[in-house]
C-alpha cells in the first residue's frame, strides 16, 4: 500500500504549483461579490419602497374608516417569480406556454442553502430547446409555492435541431429561492396544498 501512497503523493506533488497567485485576486472576488449583493439589496429595497409608495398612495385618509383591516405584504414576496410568461424567445425560436405540469419531487440543493432541485417529467417531444420552466409563485417565512410549466415550439418556427432524449429521466432543475430555505414547507402547484418538502 505504501507503493500506492508513494505514486499518489508523487502525482499530487506534480499537480501542486510552486506558489499561490497574489491574494488580491481573492480580495477582488470578495469585493465583486459584495457589489453584486449590494446591487441586489438595492433592487429589493427599491421594490419595497416602490410598493410602500404605491400602497401609501392608495391608503384611505386618516379620518376615513378602512374598509378592511390593513395587511402588510411580506417582504419576501418581492423575491417571487410570479406567474410564467405566456411566451418567450430562445434565440430566434418562439416558445409558447402549453400549461402547468406536475412537480415530481423537490430536494434541498446540497450546495446552496437557498436552492432547490426540482424534478419534473421530461417532454415527450425531441426538442433541444428548453421546454420546462420552474417558477416561485409565492414565498413567505413559512412556505414556498412553486410550479413547473411546459413550453412548446410555436407553430411555423424554424427548429431544425432534434435531440434524442437522454434516458427519459426526469429533468432536474435548480431553483434559486434568493432566500434561505430553512425549514420552510415547499408546496407544488398553482393551487392546492401538495407539500413536496418539509
Amino acid at each position: 500500500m505504501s507503493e500506492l501512497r508513494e505514486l499518489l503523493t508523487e502525482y499530487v506533488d506534480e499537480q501542486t504549483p510552486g506558489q499561490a497567485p497574489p491574494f488580491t485576486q481573492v480580495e477582488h472576488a470578495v469585493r465583486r461579490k459584495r457589489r453584486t449583493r449590494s446591487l441586489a439589496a438595492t433592487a429589493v429595497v427599491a421594490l419595497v419602497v416602490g410598493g410602500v409608495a404605491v400602497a401609501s398612495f392608495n391608503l384611505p385618509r386618516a379620518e376615513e374608516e378602512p374598509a378592511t383591516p390593513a395587511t402588510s405584504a411580506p417582504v419576501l414576496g418581492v423575491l417571487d417569480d410570479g406567474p410564467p410568461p405566456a411566451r418567450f424567445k430562445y434565440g430566434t425560436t418562439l416558445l409558447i406556454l402549453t400549461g402547468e405540469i406536475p412537480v415530481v419531487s423537490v430536494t434541498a440543493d446540497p450546495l446552496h442553502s437557498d436552492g432547490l432541485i426540482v424534478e419534473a417529467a421530461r417532454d415527450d417531444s425531441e426538442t433541444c430547446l428548453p421546454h420546462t420552466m420552474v417558477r416561485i409563485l409565492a414565498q413567505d417565512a413559512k412556505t414556498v409555492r412553486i410550479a413547473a410549466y411546459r413550453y412548446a415550439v410555436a407553430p411555423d418556427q424554424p427548429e431544425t435541431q432534434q435531440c434524442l432524449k437522454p434516458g427519459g429521466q426526469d429533468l432536474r432543475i435548480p431553483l434559486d429561492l434568493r432566500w434561505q430555505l430553512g425549514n420552510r414547507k415547499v408546496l407544488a402547484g398553482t393551487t392546492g396544498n401538495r407539500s413536496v418538502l418539509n
Partner: protein
Amino acid sequence: MEPDGGAARVRGVRHIDGDPAAEVAALYARTWPRLIGVLVSIGGSRADAEEVAQDAYVKLLGRWDRIRRYDDPEAWVRAVAVRTLVSRLRRQQVAARASAKLLGRTGEVRGPDGDALDVSAALARITPAQRAVVVLHHVMDLPIEQVADELGLPPGTVKSRLARARQALAPLLAVQEEVPHHV
C-alpha cells in the same frame, strides 16, 4: 454545502487579534498550492480547481471571524473546496454519460496492456468521490474520521469507498494491494 464546526476538527479556541485579511492572506499563501494539487488530482481541470479554491477562500474571508476560532481553518477551506468540486464533477459525469448515450460512445479509459496506466489515467477509472477519499487519506494523511468529517460522510462510507478505490487502483498501477483489517 459547507462543513460544520466538526469538519474543521475544532480542538480549541485561538487567541484572536490582528487584521483578518492579513491572517487569511497568510493562510492562503501557505495552503493554496497544496489545495490546488489535491483538487486537480481529484479530477478537476486546473481552471476548475482554481475557481473552486478561490470561492472557498472568498467564503473563508467572509466567515473568518468565526472560522479563525477553529484549530484548523485549512481543513475548513479544504472541505468546502473538495465538496464543491466533487459535486461539480458528479454533475459533469451525469452530463457526460448522457452525452455518451446520445453519441453512442462509452468514453471509458482502456485497461492496461501489460504496462501500468499512469496515475492520472488510473484515477480517471474511479469516481470523483473515491478519488477524494483516496487523496485525502493516502496523500494528505488524514485519518478516516477526519476524511469523513470533511466530506460530510459516515466513516463507514469513507472506508468502503477507500477499499473500492484501492481495489480498482492496485491492478491499474501494478501495485500490490494490502487489505488492512480495519478497513
